[in-house]
Protein backbone atom coordinates (compact mmCIF):
# COMPACT_ATOMS: atom_id res chain seq x y z
CA UNK A 1 0.00 0.00 0.00
CA UNK A 2 1.64 3.23 -1.09
CA UNK A 3 1.05 6.71 0.18
CA UNK A 4 -1.41 7.58 -2.53
CA UNK A 5 -3.89 4.84 -1.71
CA UNK A 6 -3.43 5.62 1.94
CA UNK A 7 -4.34 9.24 1.37
CA UNK A 8 -7.20 8.38 -0.94
CA UNK A 9 -9.24 6.98 1.95
CA UNK A 10 -11.88 9.22 3.37
CA UNK A 11 -10.29 9.43 6.81
CA UNK A 12 -12.71 12.09 7.99
CA UNK A 13 -15.24 9.31 8.62
CA UNK A 14 -13.07 8.22 11.53
CA UNK A 15 -12.87 11.73 13.00
CA UNK A 16 -14.42 10.94 16.39
CA UNK A 17 -12.20 7.87 16.82
CA UNK A 18 -9.08 9.85 15.94
CA UNK A 19 -9.92 12.49 18.54
CA UNK A 20 -10.36 9.83 21.22
CA UNK A 21 -7.21 7.91 20.32
CA UNK A 22 -5.05 11.05 20.20
CA UNK A 23 -6.46 12.28 23.50
CA UNK A 24 -5.76 8.95 25.19
CA UNK A 25 -2.18 8.86 23.91
CA UNK A 26 -1.57 12.42 25.11
CA UNK A 27 -3.10 11.60 28.49
CA UNK A 28 -0.92 8.49 28.88
CA UNK A 29 2.22 10.54 28.22
CA UNK A 30 1.12 13.43 30.43
CA UNK A 31 0.33 11.07 33.29
CA UNK A 32 3.76 9.50 32.89
CA UNK A 33 5.84 12.68 32.73
CA UNK A 34 3.99 15.22 34.83
CA UNK A 35 5.34 15.72 38.38
CA UNK A 36 3.71 13.72 41.17
CA UNK A 37 2.11 16.71 42.84
CA UNK A 38 0.34 17.87 39.70
CA UNK A 39 -3.40 17.51 40.23
CA UNK A 40 -4.50 14.63 38.02
CA UNK A 41 -8.08 15.92 38.00
CA UNK A 42 -6.99 18.32 35.26
CA UNK A 43 -6.36 15.26 33.06
CA UNK A 44 -9.96 14.26 33.64
CA UNK A 45 -11.17 17.61 32.34
CA UNK A 46 -8.90 17.16 29.32
CA UNK A 47 -10.51 13.76 28.64
CA UNK A 48 -13.95 15.30 29.09
CA UNK A 49 -13.19 18.02 26.55
CA UNK A 50 -11.89 15.36 24.13
CA UNK A 51 -15.15 13.42 24.40
CA UNK A 52 -17.13 16.62 23.81
CA UNK A 53 -14.98 17.33 20.74
CA UNK A 54 -15.69 13.81 19.48
CA UNK A 55 -19.43 14.42 19.95
CA UNK A 56 -19.18 17.63 17.93
CA UNK A 57 -17.21 15.87 15.21
CA UNK A 58 -19.77 13.05 15.12
CA UNK A 59 -22.63 15.55 14.84
CA UNK A 60 -20.79 17.04 11.87
CA UNK A 61 -20.83 13.63 10.21
CA UNK A 62 -24.57 13.06 10.71
CA UNK A 63 -25.50 14.22 7.20
CA UNK A 64 -22.91 12.00 5.52
CA UNK A 65 -24.05 9.17 3.31
CA UNK A 66 -23.04 5.65 4.28
CA UNK A 67 -19.32 5.42 3.85
CA UNK A 68 -16.82 2.68 4.40
CA UNK A 69 -13.06 2.73 4.38
CA UNK A 70 -10.21 0.25 4.77
CA UNK A 71 -11.82 -2.46 2.65
CA UNK A 72 -15.16 -2.16 4.35
CA UNK A 73 -13.74 -2.95 7.78
CA UNK A 74 -14.88 0.45 9.02
CA UNK A 75 -18.33 1.57 8.03
CA UNK A 76 -20.17 4.66 9.13
CA UNK A 77 -23.87 3.95 8.66
CA UNK A 78 -26.73 5.43 10.61
CA UNK A 79 -26.65 2.55 13.11
CA UNK A 80 -23.02 3.35 13.91
CA UNK A 81 -23.71 7.07 14.23
CA UNK A 82 -26.75 6.64 16.45
CA UNK A 83 -25.11 4.26 18.90
CA UNK A 84 -21.79 6.08 18.92
CA UNK A 85 -23.68 9.14 20.04
CA UNK A 86 -25.07 7.19 23.00
CA UNK A 87 -21.64 5.81 23.87
CA UNK A 88 -20.05 9.26 23.77
CA UNK A 89 -22.76 10.93 25.85
CA UNK A 90 -22.59 8.11 28.40
CA UNK A 91 -18.80 8.34 28.62
CA UNK A 92 -18.84 12.12 29.03
CA UNK A 93 -21.15 11.77 32.03
CA UNK A 94 -19.09 8.92 33.48
CA UNK A 95 -15.93 11.03 33.16
CA UNK A 96 -17.56 13.80 35.16
CA UNK A 97 -18.31 11.27 37.89
CA UNK A 98 -14.76 9.92 37.79
CA UNK A 99 -13.25 13.37 38.25
CA UNK A 100 -15.08 13.76 41.55
CA UNK A 101 -14.49 10.20 42.73
CA UNK A 102 -12.61 10.04 46.02
CA UNK A 103 -12.54 6.65 47.74
CA UNK A 104 -11.72 6.29 51.41
CA UNK A 105 -8.08 5.35 50.97
CA UNK A 106 -7.50 7.93 48.22
CA UNK A 107 -6.59 7.48 44.60
CA UNK A 108 -3.80 10.03 44.20
CA UNK A 109 -1.34 7.88 42.31
CA UNK A 110 -3.73 6.13 39.98
CA UNK A 111 -6.24 8.83 39.22
CA UNK A 112 -4.66 9.63 35.85
CA UNK A 113 -5.05 6.01 34.75
CA UNK A 114 -8.80 6.26 35.14
CA UNK A 115 -9.16 8.74 32.36
CA UNK A 116 -7.13 7.21 29.58
CA UNK A 117 -8.47 3.76 30.31
CA UNK A 118 -11.99 5.15 30.04
CA UNK A 119 -11.02 6.65 26.69
CA UNK A 120 -9.49 3.42 25.34
CA UNK A 121 -12.53 1.47 26.49
CA UNK A 122 -14.76 3.99 24.77
CA UNK A 123 -12.61 3.71 21.64
CA UNK A 124 -13.11 -0.05 21.59
CA UNK A 125 -16.86 0.39 21.89
CA UNK A 126 -16.89 2.96 19.08
CA UNK A 127 -14.85 0.72 16.78
CA UNK A 128 -17.30 -2.08 17.47
CA UNK A 129 -20.28 0.06 16.59
CA UNK A 130 -18.94 0.91 13.17
CA UNK A 131 -17.00 -2.14 12.08
CA UNK A 132 -18.03 -4.32 9.21
CA UNK A 133 -15.62 -7.15 9.78
CA UNK A 134 -15.31 -9.90 12.36
CA UNK A 135 -11.65 -9.11 13.04
CA UNK A 136 -12.25 -5.46 13.85
CA UNK A 137 -15.33 -6.37 15.88
CA UNK A 138 -13.21 -8.74 17.91
CA UNK A 139 -10.38 -6.25 18.39
CA UNK A 140 -12.86 -3.55 19.46
CA UNK A 141 -14.50 -5.95 21.89
CA UNK A 142 -11.19 -6.85 23.44
CA UNK A 143 -10.02 -3.24 23.65
CA UNK A 144 -13.14 -2.48 25.66
CA UNK A 145 -12.81 -5.62 27.77
CA UNK A 146 -9.13 -5.28 28.65
CA UNK A 147 -9.55 -1.60 29.58
CA UNK A 148 -12.44 -2.45 31.84
CA UNK A 149 -10.56 -5.32 33.52
CA UNK A 150 -7.89 -2.87 34.61
CA UNK A 151 -10.45 -0.24 35.56
CA UNK A 152 -12.28 -2.68 37.84
CA UNK A 153 -9.07 -3.36 39.75
CA UNK A 154 -7.86 0.21 39.97
CA UNK A 155 -8.12 0.44 43.76
CA UNK A 156 -5.01 -1.68 44.14
CA UNK A 157 -5.01 -1.84 47.93
CA UNK A 158 -8.69 -2.70 48.17
CA UNK A 159 -9.42 -6.42 48.47
CA UNK A 160 -12.87 -6.20 46.95
CA UNK A 161 -11.58 -4.29 43.96
CA UNK A 162 -8.82 -6.88 43.35
CA UNK A 163 -11.24 -9.71 43.61
CA UNK A 164 -13.81 -8.16 41.32
CA UNK A 165 -11.15 -7.50 38.67
CA UNK A 166 -9.94 -11.11 38.89
CA UNK A 167 -13.46 -12.48 38.53
CA UNK A 168 -14.07 -10.11 35.65
CA UNK A 169 -10.92 -11.23 33.80
CA UNK A 170 -11.71 -14.92 34.17
CA UNK A 171 -15.36 -14.62 33.16
CA UNK A 172 -14.52 -12.21 30.36
CA UNK A 173 -11.79 -14.37 28.86
CA UNK A 174 -13.96 -17.48 28.92
CA UNK A 175 -16.79 -15.65 27.20
CA UNK A 176 -14.41 -14.18 24.62
CA UNK A 177 -13.07 -17.63 23.84
CA UNK A 178 -16.59 -18.99 23.39
CA UNK A 179 -17.57 -16.13 21.07
CA UNK A 180 -14.39 -16.60 19.06
CA UNK A 181 -15.00 -20.30 18.68
CA UNK A 182 -18.38 -19.53 17.21
CA UNK A 183 -16.87 -16.91 14.93
CA UNK A 184 -14.27 -19.38 13.68
CA UNK A 185 -17.05 -21.69 12.43
CA UNK A 186 -18.72 -18.77 10.71
CA UNK A 187 -15.43 -17.99 9.01
CA UNK A 188 -14.99 -21.61 8.06
CA UNK A 189 -18.35 -21.83 6.35
CA UNK A 190 -18.12 -18.54 4.48
CA UNK A 191 -14.39 -18.17 3.92
CA UNK A 192 -14.54 -14.49 4.71
CA UNK A 193 -14.61 -12.22 7.72
CA UNK A 194 -16.42 -9.35 6.08
CA UNK A 195 -19.99 -9.16 7.35
CA UNK A 196 -21.46 -8.17 4.00
CA UNK A 197 -19.62 -10.84 2.05
CA UNK A 198 -20.54 -13.40 4.68
CA UNK A 199 -24.24 -12.65 4.49
CA UNK A 200 -24.05 -12.78 0.69
CA UNK A 201 -22.35 -16.19 0.90
CA UNK A 202 -24.84 -17.53 3.42
CA UNK A 203 -27.87 -16.60 1.33
CA UNK A 204 -26.82 -19.19 -1.21
CA UNK A 205 -26.31 -22.00 1.31
CA UNK A 206 -28.76 -24.82 0.93
CA UNK A 207 -26.96 -27.83 2.38
CA UNK A 208 -28.76 -28.65 5.68
CA UNK A 209 -25.49 -30.04 7.03
CA UNK A 210 -24.18 -26.50 7.38
CA UNK A 211 -27.30 -25.37 9.16
CA UNK A 212 -26.34 -27.42 12.23
CA UNK A 213 -22.87 -25.93 12.27
CA UNK A 214 -24.34 -22.45 11.89
CA UNK A 215 -26.75 -23.19 14.72
CA UNK A 216 -23.81 -24.15 16.91
CA UNK A 217 -22.01 -20.96 15.89
CA UNK A 218 -25.13 -18.96 16.76
CA UNK A 219 -25.39 -20.44 20.25
CA UNK A 220 -21.72 -19.93 21.00
CA UNK A 221 -21.69 -16.33 19.81
CA UNK A 222 -24.87 -15.51 21.69
CA UNK A 223 -23.67 -17.11 24.91
CA UNK A 224 -20.31 -15.34 24.66
CA UNK A 225 -21.88 -11.97 23.99
CA UNK A 226 -24.34 -12.44 26.85
CA UNK A 227 -21.33 -11.65 29.02
CA UNK A 228 -21.13 -8.09 27.73
CA UNK A 229 -24.87 -7.63 28.11
CA UNK A 230 -24.80 -9.18 31.58
CA UNK A 231 -27.76 -11.33 30.60
CA UNK A 232 -28.43 -15.00 31.34
CA UNK A 233 -26.45 -17.32 30.94
CA UNK A 234 -23.39 -15.10 31.54
CA UNK A 235 -24.76 -12.75 34.18
CA UNK A 236 -23.16 -14.08 37.34
CA UNK A 237 -20.13 -11.82 37.19
CA UNK A 238 -22.21 -8.64 37.24
CA UNK A 239 -23.15 -8.39 40.94
CA UNK A 240 -19.63 -9.20 42.15
CA UNK A 241 -17.84 -6.93 39.73
CA UNK A 242 -20.31 -4.08 40.18
CA UNK A 243 -19.90 -4.27 43.94
CA UNK A 244 -16.13 -4.41 44.01
CA UNK A 245 -15.26 -1.98 41.23
CA UNK A 246 -14.88 1.75 41.94
CA UNK A 247 -18.27 3.46 41.53
CA UNK A 248 -17.53 5.39 38.28
CA UNK A 249 -16.27 2.13 36.77
CA UNK A 250 -19.49 0.42 37.82
CA UNK A 251 -21.38 3.20 36.08
CA UNK A 252 -19.20 2.71 32.99
CA UNK A 253 -19.80 -1.03 32.96
CA UNK A 254 -23.52 -0.75 33.46
CA UNK A 255 -24.00 1.85 30.74
CA UNK A 256 -21.23 2.10 28.13
CA UNK A 257 -20.18 -1.55 28.23
CA UNK A 258 -23.79 -2.74 28.06
CA UNK A 259 -24.60 -0.50 25.10
CA UNK A 260 -21.49 -1.81 23.36
CA UNK A 261 -22.64 -5.36 24.02
CA UNK A 262 -25.97 -4.72 22.34
CA UNK A 263 -24.22 -2.99 19.46
CA UNK A 264 -22.03 -6.00 18.68
CA UNK A 265 -24.94 -8.39 19.23
CA UNK A 266 -27.12 -6.54 16.72
CA UNK A 267 -24.24 -6.17 14.24
CA UNK A 268 -23.43 -9.86 14.17
CA UNK A 269 -26.90 -11.33 14.59
CA UNK A 270 -28.84 -9.09 12.25
CA UNK A 271 -26.26 -8.93 9.49
CA UNK A 272 -25.26 -12.58 9.49
CA UNK A 273 -27.95 -14.78 10.98
CA UNK A 274 -30.88 -13.00 9.37
CA UNK A 275 -29.60 -14.00 5.95
CA UNK A 276 -29.35 -17.74 6.53
CA UNK A 277 -32.33 -19.60 5.08
CA UNK A 278 -33.52 -22.57 7.11
CA UNK A 279 -36.20 -25.17 6.58
CA UNK A 280 -37.92 -24.60 3.28
CA UNK A 281 -35.92 -21.42 2.85
CA UNK A 282 -38.66 -18.93 3.63
CA UNK A 283 -37.67 -17.81 7.11
CA UNK A 284 -34.19 -16.77 8.15
CA UNK A 285 -32.39 -18.54 10.96
CA UNK A 286 -32.65 -15.60 13.34
CA UNK A 287 -36.45 -15.79 13.27
CA UNK A 288 -36.33 -19.53 13.63
CA UNK A 289 -34.37 -19.13 16.86
CA UNK A 290 -36.58 -16.39 18.28
CA UNK A 291 -37.96 -18.73 20.93
CA UNK A 292 -34.48 -19.33 22.24
CA UNK A 293 -33.68 -15.63 22.53
CA UNK A 294 -37.11 -14.98 23.99
CA UNK A 295 -36.56 -17.67 26.60
CA UNK A 296 -33.25 -16.13 27.64
CA UNK A 297 -34.84 -12.68 27.76
CA UNK A 298 -37.59 -14.00 30.02
CA UNK A 299 -35.16 -15.77 32.35
CA UNK A 300 -32.97 -12.65 32.46
CA UNK A 301 -35.90 -10.43 33.46
CA UNK A 302 -37.19 -12.85 36.09
CA UNK A 303 -33.80 -13.58 37.61
CA UNK A 304 -32.64 -9.96 37.66
CA UNK A 305 -35.78 -8.63 39.27
CA UNK A 306 -36.39 -11.45 41.74
CA UNK A 307 -32.84 -11.72 43.08
CA UNK A 308 -32.67 -7.93 43.40
CA UNK A 309 -35.43 -8.15 46.00
CA UNK A 310 -33.15 -9.49 48.70
CA UNK A 311 -30.11 -7.23 48.12
CA UNK A 312 -28.99 -4.91 50.89
CA UNK A 313 -25.98 -3.55 49.04
CA UNK A 314 -27.00 -0.73 46.75
CA UNK A 315 -24.42 -1.55 44.06
CA UNK A 316 -25.43 -5.21 43.97
CA UNK A 317 -29.03 -4.10 43.77
CA UNK A 318 -28.24 -1.97 40.78
CA UNK A 319 -26.28 -4.84 39.23
CA UNK A 320 -29.38 -7.03 39.33
CA UNK A 321 -31.49 -4.13 38.13
CA UNK A 322 -29.12 -3.72 35.18
CA UNK A 323 -29.44 -7.44 34.43
CA UNK A 324 -33.21 -6.94 34.36
CA UNK A 325 -32.88 -3.98 32.01
CA UNK A 326 -30.76 -6.10 29.66
CA UNK A 327 -33.68 -8.51 29.66
CA UNK A 328 -36.13 -5.78 28.66
CA UNK A 329 -33.93 -4.75 25.75
CA UNK A 330 -33.59 -8.39 24.71
CA UNK A 331 -37.40 -8.49 24.44
CA UNK A 332 -37.16 -5.82 21.75
CA UNK A 333 -34.40 -7.82 20.07
CA UNK A 334 -36.51 -10.99 20.17
CA UNK A 335 -39.57 -9.35 18.65
CA UNK A 336 -37.58 -7.97 15.67
CA UNK A 337 -40.37 -5.56 14.82
CA UNK A 338 -39.61 -2.82 12.33
CA UNK A 339 -39.28 -0.37 15.22
CA UNK A 340 -36.64 -2.55 16.91
CA UNK A 341 -33.73 -0.19 16.29
CA UNK A 342 -35.72 2.86 17.35
CA UNK A 343 -37.04 1.30 20.52
CA UNK A 344 -33.66 -0.13 21.54
CA UNK A 345 -31.99 3.20 20.86
CA UNK A 346 -34.56 5.12 22.84
CA UNK A 347 -34.49 2.68 25.74
CA UNK A 348 -30.71 2.98 25.92
CA UNK A 349 -30.86 6.75 25.76
CA UNK A 350 -33.29 6.73 28.68
CA UNK A 351 -31.15 4.14 30.46
CA UNK A 352 -27.99 6.26 30.09
CA UNK A 353 -29.62 9.19 31.86
CA UNK A 354 -31.57 7.40 34.56
CA UNK A 355 -28.84 4.96 35.48
CA UNK A 356 -25.96 7.43 35.44
CA UNK A 357 -28.01 9.91 37.47
CA UNK A 358 -28.68 7.23 40.04
CA UNK A 359 -25.01 6.23 40.11
CA UNK A 360 -23.98 9.86 40.63
CA UNK A 361 -26.05 9.95 43.80
CA UNK A 362 -24.89 6.49 44.90
CA UNK A 363 -21.28 7.58 44.51
CA UNK A 364 -21.89 10.77 46.46
CA UNK A 365 -23.52 8.97 49.36
CA UNK A 366 -21.40 5.82 49.63
CA UNK A 367 -17.87 6.97 48.86
CA UNK A 368 -17.28 8.37 52.32
CA UNK A 369 -18.79 5.34 54.04
CA UNK A 370 -16.96 2.05 54.24
CA UNK A 371 -19.88 0.03 52.91
CA UNK A 372 -22.62 0.40 50.35
CA UNK A 373 -25.48 -0.67 52.55
CA UNK A 374 -28.85 0.61 51.48
CA UNK A 375 -29.23 2.05 55.00
CA UNK A 376 -26.97 4.94 54.08
CA UNK A 377 -29.87 6.32 52.10
CA UNK A 378 -31.98 6.58 55.25
CA UNK A 379 -33.22 10.09 55.87
CA UNK A 380 -31.75 11.48 52.68
CA UNK A 381 -34.79 13.72 52.40
CA UNK A 382 -33.81 15.39 55.68
CA UNK A 383 -30.18 15.76 54.73
CA UNK A 384 -30.74 17.06 51.24
CA UNK A 385 -34.30 17.31 49.89
CA UNK A 386 -33.19 18.09 46.35
CA UNK A 387 -30.95 15.01 46.12
CA UNK A 388 -33.72 12.82 47.47
CA UNK A 389 -36.21 14.16 44.93
CA UNK A 390 -33.85 13.74 41.96
CA UNK A 391 -32.97 10.21 43.11
CA UNK A 392 -36.70 9.56 43.27
CA UNK A 393 -37.02 10.73 39.67
CA UNK A 394 -34.30 8.31 38.54
CA UNK A 395 -35.80 5.43 40.48
CA UNK A 396 -39.30 6.12 39.16
CA UNK A 397 -37.85 6.16 35.66
CA UNK A 398 -35.97 2.88 36.21
CA UNK A 399 -39.19 1.37 37.52
CA UNK A 400 -41.05 2.67 34.47
CA UNK A 401 -43.62 5.05 35.98
CA UNK A 402 -45.47 7.27 33.46
CA UNK A 403 -44.03 10.74 33.00
CA UNK A 404 -40.45 9.51 32.88
CA UNK A 405 -38.18 8.39 30.07
CA UNK A 406 -38.10 4.80 31.34
CA UNK A 407 -41.86 4.48 30.88
CA UNK A 408 -41.76 5.54 27.23
CA UNK A 409 -38.86 3.16 26.60
CA UNK A 410 -40.69 0.22 28.14
CA UNK A 411 -43.92 1.11 26.36
CA UNK A 412 -42.16 1.07 22.99
CA UNK A 413 -40.60 -2.31 23.64
CA UNK A 414 -43.94 -3.65 24.87
CA UNK A 415 -45.83 -2.42 21.82
CA UNK A 416 -43.06 -3.71 19.55
CA UNK A 417 -43.45 -7.19 21.02
CA UNK A 418 -47.19 -7.14 20.35
CA UNK A 419 -47.01 -5.49 16.94
CA UNK A 420 -45.32 -8.38 15.15
CA UNK A 421 -47.15 -11.48 14.08
CA UNK A 422 -47.27 -13.87 15.80
CA UNK A 423 -47.29 -11.56 18.80
CA UNK A 424 -45.13 -12.35 21.78
CA UNK A 425 -47.90 -12.30 24.38
CA UNK A 426 -46.05 -14.46 26.88
CA UNK A 427 -42.90 -12.37 26.72
CA UNK A 428 -44.88 -9.14 27.01
CA UNK A 429 -46.75 -10.38 30.06
CA UNK A 430 -43.56 -11.57 31.73
CA UNK A 431 -42.17 -8.10 31.10
CA UNK A 432 -45.16 -6.47 32.82
CA UNK A 433 -45.08 -8.94 35.72
CA UNK A 434 -41.37 -8.51 36.39
CA UNK A 435 -41.75 -4.73 36.14
CA UNK A 436 -44.27 -4.93 38.94
CA UNK A 437 -41.85 -7.08 40.95
CA UNK A 438 -39.18 -4.44 40.41
CA UNK A 439 -41.37 -1.84 42.15
CA UNK A 440 -40.71 -3.57 45.47
CA UNK A 441 -36.97 -3.05 45.52
CA UNK A 442 -37.02 0.31 43.79
CA UNK A 443 -39.60 1.64 46.23
CA UNK A 444 -37.60 0.12 49.09
CA UNK A 445 -34.93 2.72 48.33
CA UNK A 446 -37.61 5.43 48.29
CA UNK A 447 -38.89 4.31 51.70
CA UNK A 448 -35.37 4.60 53.06
CA UNK A 449 -34.94 8.08 51.65
CA UNK A 450 -38.24 9.60 52.66
CA UNK A 451 -39.55 7.77 55.71
CA UNK A 452 -36.59 6.47 57.71
CA UNK A 453 -34.79 8.73 60.20
CA UNK A 454 -31.26 9.68 59.21
CA UNK A 455 -28.33 8.17 61.08
CA UNK A 456 -26.47 11.44 60.73
CA UNK A 457 -27.68 14.88 59.90
CA UNK A 458 -24.57 16.21 58.19
CA UNK A 459 -25.22 18.13 55.02
CA UNK A 460 -23.83 16.60 51.84
CA UNK A 461 -21.31 18.59 49.85
CA UNK A 462 -21.96 18.45 46.11
CA UNK A 463 -18.87 18.61 43.87
CA UNK A 464 -19.36 20.53 40.63
CA UNK A 465 -19.04 17.57 38.22
CA UNK A 466 -21.44 15.31 40.09
CA UNK A 467 -23.85 18.20 40.40
CA UNK A 468 -23.76 18.72 36.64
CA UNK A 469 -24.38 15.01 36.00
CA UNK A 470 -27.35 14.94 38.36
CA UNK A 471 -28.92 18.04 36.81
CA UNK A 472 -28.40 16.90 33.20
CA UNK A 473 -29.71 13.42 33.91
CA UNK A 474 -32.76 14.61 35.86
CA UNK A 475 -33.73 17.14 33.21
CA UNK A 476 -33.22 14.63 30.39
CA UNK A 477 -35.15 11.89 32.18
CA UNK A 478 -38.20 14.10 32.69
CA UNK A 479 -37.94 15.80 29.30
CA UNK A 480 -37.78 12.49 27.42
CA UNK A 481 -40.68 11.23 29.50
CA UNK A 482 -42.89 14.20 28.77
CA UNK A 483 -41.78 14.91 25.22
CA UNK A 484 -40.37 11.67 23.78
CA UNK A 485 -41.04 12.94 20.26
CA UNK A 486 -37.91 15.08 20.65
CA UNK A 487 -35.77 11.96 20.49
CA UNK A 488 -37.92 10.19 17.90
CA UNK A 489 -37.91 13.21 15.60
CA UNK A 490 -34.14 13.30 15.91
CA UNK A 491 -34.04 9.62 14.93
CA UNK A 492 -36.40 10.15 12.00
CA UNK A 493 -34.63 13.14 10.52
CA UNK A 494 -31.11 11.82 10.90
CA UNK A 495 -31.20 8.07 10.66
CA UNK A 496 -34.22 7.20 8.49
CA UNK A 497 -35.14 4.01 10.38
CA UNK A 498 -31.64 2.61 9.94
CA UNK A 499 -32.43 1.56 6.37
CA UNK A 500 -28.76 1.45 5.40
CA UNK A 501 -27.83 -1.14 8.05
CA UNK A 502 -27.51 -4.01 5.61
CA UNK A 503 -26.59 -2.17 2.45
Amino acid at each position, binding site marked *: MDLETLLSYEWSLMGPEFIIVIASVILTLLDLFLPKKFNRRMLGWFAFVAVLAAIVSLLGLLDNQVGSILHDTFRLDSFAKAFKLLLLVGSALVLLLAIDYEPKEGLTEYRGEFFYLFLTGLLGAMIMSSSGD*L*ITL*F*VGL*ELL*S*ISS*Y*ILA*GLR*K*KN*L*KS*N*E*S*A*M*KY*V*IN*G*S*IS*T*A*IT*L*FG*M*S*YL*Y*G*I*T*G*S*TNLNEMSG*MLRTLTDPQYTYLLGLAFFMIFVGLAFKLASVPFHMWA*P*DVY*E*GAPTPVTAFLSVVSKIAGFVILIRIMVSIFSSIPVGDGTIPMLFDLQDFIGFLAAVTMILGNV*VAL*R*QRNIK*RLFAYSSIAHAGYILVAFTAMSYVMFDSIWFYMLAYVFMNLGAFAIIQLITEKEGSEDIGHFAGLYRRSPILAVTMAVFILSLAGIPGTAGFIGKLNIFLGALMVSPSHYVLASIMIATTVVSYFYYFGIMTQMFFRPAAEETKLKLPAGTNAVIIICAVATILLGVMPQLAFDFLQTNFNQFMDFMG
Partner: protein
Amino acid sequence: MSGVPVSAYLALALILFCIGLYGALTKKNTIIVLISIELMLNAVNINLITFSKLGMAPAITGQIFAIFVIAVAAAEVAVGIAILLSLYRNRKTVNIDDMNQLKN
Protein backbone atom coordinates in the same frame (compact mmCIF):
# COMPACT_ATOMS: atom_id res chain seq x y z
CA MET B 1 -0.99 -32.13 4.99
CA SER B 2 -2.34 -34.51 2.40
CA GLY B 3 -3.44 -37.54 4.40
CA VAL B 4 -5.18 -35.86 7.31
CA PRO B 5 -8.84 -34.96 6.72
CA VAL B 6 -10.26 -31.60 7.74
CA SER B 7 -12.56 -33.20 10.27
CA ALA B 8 -9.57 -34.47 12.26
CA TYR B 9 -8.26 -30.95 12.75
CA LEU B 10 -11.71 -29.71 13.69
CA ALA B 11 -12.17 -32.54 16.16
CA LEU B 12 -8.80 -31.76 17.71
CA ALA B 13 -9.81 -28.14 18.11
CA LEU B 14 -13.15 -29.09 19.63
CA ILE B 15 -11.54 -31.47 22.11
CA LEU B 16 -8.94 -28.87 23.05
CA PHE B 17 -11.70 -26.31 23.55
CA CYS B 18 -13.67 -28.63 25.79
CA ILE B 19 -10.60 -29.48 27.89
CA GLY B 20 -9.92 -25.78 28.27
CA LEU B 21 -13.51 -25.01 29.25
CA TYR B 22 -13.52 -27.86 31.75
CA GLY B 23 -10.26 -26.68 33.28
CA ALA B 24 -11.37 -23.06 33.44
CA LEU B 25 -14.57 -23.99 35.25
CA THR B 26 -13.22 -26.56 37.71
CA LYS B 27 -9.61 -25.81 38.63
CA LYS B 28 -8.80 -24.19 41.96
CA ASN B 29 -5.55 -22.48 41.04
CA THR B 30 -5.98 -19.18 39.19
CA ILE B 31 -2.84 -19.73 37.11
CA ILE B 32 -4.21 -23.04 35.84
CA VAL B 33 -7.49 -21.31 35.03
CA LEU B 34 -5.65 -18.72 32.95
CA ILE B 35 -3.73 -21.48 31.17
CA SER B 36 -7.00 -23.29 30.45
CA ILE B 37 -8.36 -20.12 28.89
CA GLU B 38 -5.28 -20.06 26.66
CA LEU B 39 -6.14 -23.61 25.58
CA MET B 40 -9.59 -22.45 24.53
CA LEU B 41 -8.15 -19.58 22.52
CA ASN B 42 -5.61 -21.85 20.86
CA ALA B 43 -8.40 -24.21 19.87
CA VAL B 44 -9.89 -21.23 18.05
CA ASN B 45 -6.57 -20.69 16.30
CA ILE B 46 -6.42 -24.29 15.11
CA ASN B 47 -9.92 -23.91 13.71
CA LEU B 48 -9.04 -20.70 11.92
CA ILE B 49 -5.84 -22.07 10.40
CA THR B 50 -7.57 -25.26 9.29
CA PHE B 51 -10.34 -23.33 7.56
CA SER B 52 -7.85 -20.95 6.04
CA LYS B 53 -5.83 -23.81 4.52
CA LEU B 54 -8.30 -26.63 3.94
CA GLY B 55 -11.71 -24.98 4.19
CA MET B 56 -14.33 -24.64 1.51
CA ALA B 57 -13.05 -21.23 0.49
CA PRO B 58 -9.36 -21.14 1.44
CA ALA B 59 -8.16 -17.60 2.07
CA ILE B 60 -5.41 -15.88 3.98
CA THR B 61 -7.95 -14.03 6.17
CA GLY B 62 -8.11 -16.88 8.64
CA GLN B 63 -4.39 -16.69 9.34
CA ILE B 64 -4.62 -12.93 9.83
CA PHE B 65 -7.48 -13.51 12.26
CA ALA B 66 -5.37 -16.08 14.12
CA ILE B 67 -2.51 -13.59 14.48
CA PHE B 68 -4.92 -11.06 15.96
CA VAL B 69 -6.25 -13.68 18.36
CA ILE B 70 -2.73 -14.56 19.49
CA ALA B 71 -1.80 -10.92 20.09
CA VAL B 72 -4.98 -10.07 21.93
CA ALA B 73 -4.84 -13.26 24.01
CA ALA B 74 -1.32 -12.32 25.11
CA ALA B 75 -2.53 -8.90 26.21
CA GLU B 76 -5.50 -10.39 28.03
CA VAL B 77 -3.40 -12.88 29.96
CA ALA B 78 -0.80 -10.22 30.80
CA VAL B 79 -3.55 -8.15 32.38
CA GLY B 80 -4.93 -11.23 34.12
CA ILE B 81 -1.54 -12.05 35.64
CA ALA B 82 -1.01 -8.43 36.70
CA ILE B 83 -4.36 -8.40 38.49
CA LEU B 84 -3.56 -11.75 40.08
CA LEU B 85 -0.24 -10.33 41.34
CA SER B 86 -1.89 -7.38 43.01
CA LEU B 87 -4.46 -9.72 44.52
CA TYR B 88 -1.67 -11.99 45.76
CA ARG B 89 0.08 -9.05 47.44
CA ASN B 90 -3.04 -8.36 49.47
CA ARG B 91 -4.34 -11.86 50.11
CA LYS B 92 -1.28 -14.16 49.84
CA THR B 93 -3.29 -16.72 47.91
CA VAL B 94 -4.00 -17.70 44.30
CA ASN B 95 -6.75 -20.13 45.22
CA ILE B 96 -10.06 -19.34 43.56
CA ASP B 97 -12.03 -20.65 46.53
CA ASP B 98 -10.48 -17.97 48.75
CA MET B 99 -11.84 -15.22 46.56
CA ASN B 100 -15.08 -15.04 48.48
CA GLN B 101 -15.26 -11.49 49.77
CA LEU B 102 -17.99 -10.64 47.30
CA LYS B 103 -21.13 -12.70 47.57
CA ASN B 104 -24.81 -12.47 48.22
